């Protein structure tokens, strides 16, 4: 065990608007299947949104679902699926040696809005305010619900990192493994944001909420006619282990965390900063010991806002324009913006590339915005490569937080 321990992914559990397992999700991404639909939301009539349809009673009874939060249910589903996928018995390392680290864009907005609304039905008399409010809205709720459900007594927390949070869950999990504080990390991100009218309304007031007659066409990063974000819910939990532990139990290894970085724009509440994004990408590459041309797939953050997409394309062009073998795609075009889950889900959607060698395409680009021209942007149909060995995943958020994670194929040698 050391601070430079190699960290590998040995399990993935997820729910996305277009799939409730990695195989379903991947199938949708290779076949152009969107998960965006029209929903009704309080005060706003209808909006396009990415909605998950997993069986929330698979790992919880009705009382547990009623008491907890949607983010908690999504997290519990993903965590249990991930453990099953990893074939891991948590009693072997011991449940006190397992940590749960989930990225969140926000938490508590949904529950607070609902309770304020309910209180209005009782003349705003606070004796009708629920005692469930605090445990539902504490910032550790989603990760804490996982520990309650799975009897995990090691550390847990949620990492508040706006829409960079999914990558941050993975980064934090890897760091805790390297510190030796845990032996297994359940790490990723979660979003319940579609159940909050305020998140939609705030994007609308900002001029950044997508509208389209066809919800499946509403999320269109890099397209000339894009008009904003499609909010989505979802979750993705990875099982992370030190390589030697994974090898000792003969675990299936999806890939290895090769490098990561996160930094701050220090420039604006909402506007991204391509210079800082580029710095973050370069730092992750440096830590991975890689050049831009070593990256086979760049999965963009691209949310479908005018400036956000342009700025990210500036950063990517600056770094990858000289690389002939780096292919670029976007996952939000299928599922919308899954907020705290986005980074983790979008990375997961690309990990099967290590075995099938396809780059899933970006959909809904009918006319590329000239400001978003990217060399090797994969549009419309999957691109088959000779092999995929590396994925670089961008995830950026408000207040100027950038996160980049690089995952490489595990080649089966302790020396590489």
């Amino acid at each position: 065990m050391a601070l430079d321990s190699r960290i590998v992914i040995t399990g993935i559990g997820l729910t996305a608007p277009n799939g409730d397992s990695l195989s379903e999700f991947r199938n949708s991404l290779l076949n152009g299947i969107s998960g965006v639909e029209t929903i009704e939301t309080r005060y706003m009539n209808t909006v396009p949104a990415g909605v998950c349809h997993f069986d929330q009673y698979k790992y919880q009874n009705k009382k547990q679902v009623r008491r907890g939060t949607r983010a908690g249910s999504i997290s519990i589903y993903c965590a249990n699926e991930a453990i099953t996928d990893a074939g891991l018995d948590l009693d072997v390392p011991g449940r006190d040696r397992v940590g749960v680290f989930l990225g969140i864009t926000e938490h508590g907005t949904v529950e607070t809005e609902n309770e304020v609304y309910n209180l209005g039905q009782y003349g705003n008399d606070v004796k009708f305010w629920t005692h469930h409010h605090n445990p539902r809205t504490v910032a550790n709720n989603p990760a804490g619900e996982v520990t309650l459900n799975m009897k995990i007594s090691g550390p847990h927390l949620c990492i508040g990192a706006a829409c960079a949070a999914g990558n941050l869950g993975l980064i934090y999990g890897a760091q805790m493994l390297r510190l030796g504080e845990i032996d297994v990390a359940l790490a990723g991100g979660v979003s319940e944001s579609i159940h909050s009218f305020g998140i939609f309304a705030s994007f609308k007031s900002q001029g950044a909420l997508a509208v389209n007659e066809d919800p499946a066409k509403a999320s269109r990063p890099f397209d000339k006619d894009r008009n904003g974000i499609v909010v989505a819910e979802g979750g993705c939990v990875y099982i992370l282990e030190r390589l030697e532990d994974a090898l000792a139990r003969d675990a299936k290894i999806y890939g290895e965390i090769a490098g990561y970085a996160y930094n701050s724009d220090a420039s604006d509440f909402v506007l991204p900063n391509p210079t800082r994004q580029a710095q973050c990408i370069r730092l992750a590459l440096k830590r991975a010991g890689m050049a831009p041309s070593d990256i086979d797939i760049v999965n963009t953050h691209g949310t479908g806002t005018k400036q956000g997409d342009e700025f990210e394309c500036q950063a990517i062009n600056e770094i990858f324009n000289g690389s002939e073998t780096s292919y670029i795609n976007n996952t939000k075009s299928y599922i919308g913006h899954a907020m705290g889950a986005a980074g983790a889900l979008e990375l997961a959607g690309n990990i099967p590339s290590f075995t099938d060698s396809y780059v899933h395409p970006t959909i809904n680009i009918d006319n590329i915005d000239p400001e978003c021209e990217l060399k090797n942007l994969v549009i419309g149909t999957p691109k088959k490569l000779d092999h995929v060995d590396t994925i670089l995943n961008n995830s950026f958020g408000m207040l100027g937080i950038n996160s980049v994670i690089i995952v490489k194929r595990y080649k089966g040698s302790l020396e590489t």
Partner: protein
Amino acid sequence: MTKEDISQAVIDIIQEILPDEDMGGLDQEKPLRDQLELDSMDFLDIVMELRKRYSVEVPEKDYMELNTLQSTVQYLQPKMESL
């Protein structure tokens, strides 16, 4: 409300709070907590639902009155019989 009405009202509230439980075999004279997976948060839910549905207040000093279904109905009867 009659005693039977009050009993049914309490059962309906508990059933909503504990949707996984079978209320059919509930023994009126045994403590609710011995028969149901009823924790302190659920108990507060019962108090809240009585407040919301019937404008009945159960002060904290009286919580012990809600020990069994029978004692609950006896306690609530003077508060709910005129409803």
